[in-house]
């Protein structure tokens, strides 16, 4: 009988469950994929129950259920912070009390009851330790320095570790409210985007600007290799406010904040100002992470770096770490945010509490639920949806290539859904990146999102150098689409719809280990066009989680102007564009 450990992250944002069998992640999913509430923070019982179903085990079979952090220590931080901020913290105090006393303080009991297990099986990791474990124990490194940077966990906002066969040793940490993640989120709110969701938009917006406000941003966020980072707290309010994260002084420094419902037009002076502020923030945040990484490298002497925490979703920073530090290689877990803490908590417990043997490195992103061709066929028949069925995958792939070459935008639903926030060829929207009209078409008519949002290229492994200026030691970022690289001069005109305005692209490389079917599609597309590259974006509409089931794929399909949908070995054409589906 194998040993199973279930990891749980919840109660802030991006709740998730991950099941580890003998040191290897065998099933993992964010709760939002099942509940359909984006960034769902509730205890992830739907995801956890699916993980157990997937392995065919009962709750009693679990050796342990590991919560990703120490809730009482987090509560202590909230209370002390609010006491210190009296009398400005009344609203934050009321909100904290109303959410923690009836609910969040009783995690052990809630998990035991919800999962049907003995409460003694529930154990607790530490937030940044969970982040660090998610990166180190899924990396191919025997030993590495680990840097975990996010908003805040219990007390720490950043933690530095040295990891080896002996486990993960915490060397030092930076405490709340000094936090790169929270300052980035304060700017996110200032720029009119939603905190914990719009940070990627700020990163995308930064490409349109010039870093003219670096000195101003450095007044708020300073860093050095020896002392870490420091925040000037007179510019931020997140330490005592539940609703506002930047102060009046912040607005005096940068001008009026952008209203969330105002259209962001980068061609206007006001729009350019916001883009310049985003670019300046991006530059300073990068300097901060580089300083932390350099300090950690000097302290540990390691040549490999694991980066974890929400800040590791900043693909621009990730890609520059090997060229700006002494590290030779960098690895980021495919779910570096709080969802990944579920995997990290379980891996930490397996390796360090249960003293299990370390499992293999993570090579494939598809750790979620799958639907068989038989189930899809029944669904299409039930809904009376006209479709074409292919006898085999080769015929299906040939049809996808024909559609893409023909200029169609395709929904691609294949196999198990991805672990982490990126669509990596299991639940994707695909298009021909050589067609310049695709960016506007997909943003406006399919995903209904901002025009400045870029799209990513998926490239067949081995062909990256033909199109992109890869930095040495960043290969391990590529399978998870977690690095942004310059597109080579000659390739920018070739790939107009996946080349961002600043000439960069967030590249995903695909091999037969990570996703064999998607790799075959890229090979076939390359044979047809001469370029084994596809535009790959997540299969969802703005504000929604990525689709999970075939039915959700169909709903998204018929609610947008996607041309064609490949559900397993079935092809469905969108006859409903611009009218009611059943008319």
């Amino acid at each position, binding site marked *: 009988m194998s040993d199973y450990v279930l990891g749980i992250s919840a109660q802030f944002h991006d709740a998730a469950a991950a099941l580890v069998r003998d040191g290897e992640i065998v099933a993992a999913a964010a709760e939002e994929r099942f509940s359909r509430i984006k960034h769902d923070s509730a205890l992830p019982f739907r995801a956890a129950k699916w993980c157990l179903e997937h392995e065919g085990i009962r709750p009693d079979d679990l050796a342990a259920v590991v919560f990703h952090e120490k809730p009482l220590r987090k509560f*202590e931080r909230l209370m002390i912070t609010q*006491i210190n901020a009296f009398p400005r913290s009344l609203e934050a105090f009321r909100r904290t009390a109303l959410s923690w006393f009836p609910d969040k303080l009783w995690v052990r009991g809630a998990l035991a009851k919800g999962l049907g297990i003995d409460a003694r099986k529930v154990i*607790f*990791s530490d937030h940044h330790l969970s982040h660090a474990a998610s990166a180190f124990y899924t990396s191919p490194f025997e030993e590495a320095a680990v840097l975990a940077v996010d908003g805040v966990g219990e007390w720490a906002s950043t933690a530095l570790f040295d990891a080896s066969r002996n486990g993960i040793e915490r060397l030092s*940490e930076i405490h709340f409210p*000094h936090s790169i993640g929270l300052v980035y989120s304060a700017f996110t709110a200032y720029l009119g985007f939603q905190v914990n969701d719009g940070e990627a938009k700020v990163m995308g917006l930064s490409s349109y600007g010039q870093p003219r406000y670096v000195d101003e941003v450095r007044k708020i966020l300073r860093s050095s290799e020896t002392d870490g980072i420091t925040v000037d707290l007179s510019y931020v309010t997140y330490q005592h406010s539940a609703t506002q994260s930047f102060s009046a002084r912040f607005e005096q420094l940068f001008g009026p904040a952008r209203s969330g419902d105002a259209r962001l037009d980068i061609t206007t002076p006001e729009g350019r100002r916001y883009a310049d502020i985003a670019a300046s923030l991006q530059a300073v945040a990068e300097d901060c992470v580089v300083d932390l990484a350099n300090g950690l490298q000097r302290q540990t002497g390691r040549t490999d770096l694991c980066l974890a925490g929400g800040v590791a979703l900043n693909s621009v920073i990730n890609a520059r770490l090997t060229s700006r530090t002494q590290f030779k290689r960098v690895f980021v877990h495919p779910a570096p945010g709080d969802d990944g803490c579920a995997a990290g908590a379980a891996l930490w417990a397996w390796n360090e509490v249960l003293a299990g043997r370390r499992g293999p490195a993570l090579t494939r992103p598809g750790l979620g639920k799958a639907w068989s061709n038989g189930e899809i066929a029944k669904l299409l028949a039930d*809904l009376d949806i006209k479709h074409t069925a292919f006898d085999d995958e080769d015929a299906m792939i040939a049809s996808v290539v024909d559609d893409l070459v023909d200029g169609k935008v395709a929904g691609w639903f294949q196999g198990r859904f991805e672990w982490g926030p990126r669509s990596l060829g299991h639940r994707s929207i695909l298009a021909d990146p050589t067609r310049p009209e695709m960016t506007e078409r997909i943003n406006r008519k399919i995903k209904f999102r901002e025009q400045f949002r870029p799209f990513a290229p998926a490239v067949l492994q081995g062909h990256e150098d033909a199109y992109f200026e890869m930095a040495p030691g960043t290969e391990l970022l590529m399978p998870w689409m977690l690095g942004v690289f310059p597109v080579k001069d000659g390739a920018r005109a070739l790939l107009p719809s996946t080349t961002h305005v600043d000439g960069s692209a967030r590249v995903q490389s695909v091999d037969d280990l990570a996703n064999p079917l998607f790799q075959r599609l890229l090979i076939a597309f390359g044979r047809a066009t001469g370029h084994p590259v596809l535009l790959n974006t997540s299969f969802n509409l703005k504000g929604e989680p990525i689709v999970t089931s075939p039915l959700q794929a169909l*709903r998204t399909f018929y609610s947008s102007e996607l041309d064609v949908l490949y559900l397993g070995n079935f092809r469905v054409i969108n006859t409903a564009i611009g009218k009611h589906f059943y008319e």
Partner: protein
Amino acid sequence: MLDQSNPFTMLRLVSWVVWKIPSRRPLKMAGFSHTEAGSSLDMMDAAELAPTASLRKKYFRHALDEFRHSRLFHERAIALSRGSHAADVLEDAEYSASHGIRGETSLYERLGETEFLAFVWLHERQGARQFGLYADLMKHDAASSAMFAEICADEEYHVSYSRRELDRIEIQKGPREVRGAIRRLRLRRAREAFLRTSHGFGHVMAGLWLTVIYFGIVAPFSLAGRRSAPAAGLVATPGASARARLEYEVQG
């Protein structure tokens, strides 16, 4: 039951007052957008689990309609907002979660087939009346009025298919099955309304008590024990990982 033909019914009066206030309109639209999005999720769950192809198809169409309505309300809220808080409401995922549209199990699983259909029938009938009335009241705003009329037509279809399904169940299982389901549902709605009111009242009272506690207890702590500003920069943590390994059972 309210008589729509009577212009002085309570519903018409309240609706007239609500829609008369321009600043309320985008917020109402944003609220409807969330409600319809929640209904779309409930109908998707039902379509995933429906026992027959016929029901599955109807639930799926219903889900598509609700999603489209959500988008229409969303766009109208944005068009009417002009700097109000509607955009914040629309973007706020917590708002969706706190409006109780999801639980650990789906509405369909909790209610079962007959009660779920009764739920759809009752709610859509109420929605059709409500949106029909709004289409009438919003004549001065042609775009909003047309939108309400379009949505109302869909709601009427939802009323008719759910009623037909209930009639089918009546024939198969007898009228008591459906009447019982509707009665249970009405009781459930009354109970939920009571719980919502109690919860709201409790929330207000808890807020008041917490304010008293804040000024009565937190204030002295703050004055007596105010800590110096948190240390900035790196703090060494020798032995932290070893402690974590030993203290895995401890919550804090």
